């Protein structure tokens, strides 16, 4: 009977119920009383959502982000903990670069010092490259430590005695 009122019956079942109701006073009365209660329920007023409910939810979401990051989907997605040290390192490097990089409005003295720094760094780099080249091209004499030791032994006056 309830499924009939709710429109949940298939067409064949609907026909069967209709046929039965046509000849059964008791079932018609039952249907009528159920429908009366059903209509009263349908008339229950609906609440409007209060204006501050979303604010409360929003505050709760932000609070939960800071208080329980491990159980919070949002915090895991937006601020993965494993990225925090990497992010901090990158932020530090960026700060150093920004401090060293000449800006359009930077101090002329600082710019001059920075240019000097670059020039010295280039000279050091050139010098280092030259040293490396010399090392590559330099043929060290073949020193046999055993021969040297024998020679030294032969020159030792105490041993000669």
């Amino acid at each position, binding site marked *: *009977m*309830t*499924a*009939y*009122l*709710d*429109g*949940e019956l298939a067409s064949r079942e609907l026909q069967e119920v*209709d046929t039965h*109701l*046509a000849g059964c006073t008791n079932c*018609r009365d039952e*249907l*009528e*009383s*159920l*429908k*009366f*209660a*059903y*209509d*009263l*329920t*349908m*008339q*229950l*007023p*609906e*609440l*409007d*959502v*209060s204006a501050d*409910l*979303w604010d*409360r*939810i*929003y505050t*709760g*979401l932000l609070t*939960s982000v800071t208080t329980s990051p491990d*159980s*919070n*989907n*949002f915090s*895991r*997605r*937006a601020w993965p903990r494993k990225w925090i040290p990497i992010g901090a390192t990158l932020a530090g490097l960026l700060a150093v670069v920004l401090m060293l990089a000449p800006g359009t409005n930077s101090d002329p003295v600082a710019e001059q010092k920075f240019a000097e720094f670059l020039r010295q760094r280039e000279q050091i780099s050139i010098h280092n490259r030259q040293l490396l080249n010399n090392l590559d091209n330099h043929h060290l004499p073949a020193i046999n430590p055993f021969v040297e030791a024998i020679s030294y032994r032969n020159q030792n006056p105490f041993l000669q005695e």
Partner: protein
Amino acid sequence: MKDETQKREPRKSDASSNLPASRLRELVGRAQEGDLDAFQELYSFYGRKILNYLYRMTGSREEAEDLAQDTFILAFRNLGSLKHPERFQSWLFRIAQNNVYQKYRGKRPQIESIDEEDFNELSDLQRLSTPSKGPEEAVLSDELEALVQQAISELPEKYRTVFVLSAIQKMSYQRISEIVGRSLASVKSDIHRARVEVRDKIKKYLGKNYGMSKL
């Protein structure tokens, strides 16, 4: 011959009261990535439904708002576990249902009992609802609303859930089955028992106070 007006028109599909599937998928997907604007849009669509479901389950606006708040916060936290965005509504109602269950575990919500003297002051059923409006628009008097609400609140939780989802939220039996996690046959049976029980309580009150023999 049966009065044809008694038969209810088949209820509209739940889809008509839902977001378009593509929009729902998009919003849920964005919310799963932490987009609060998308989640707020989901709230704008489902907030009122959840609030009214909880209101009829608890009988208290204050309790309903607290539970609605908890429901949406919990939903956002656990959105990552929702594998099928198209089932968002059922999933959300299930969270709300669990919240009610946990809050009132083993006990029923406290509803103020109806003052029978108030009922005795009413002369007839016409005073219980506004006669100028049609059945769909009629507004119940406070007393009659309290009567129906008490009848709902006195239902065992198992029946109360399916009754509110069916009679108030007007959901299909299939969707209710998804929400409560019981078979369709079980849901049908429970809705029927709940309706009969609510009817009997209303009948008892109105019969006693108004001598309404037709009930």
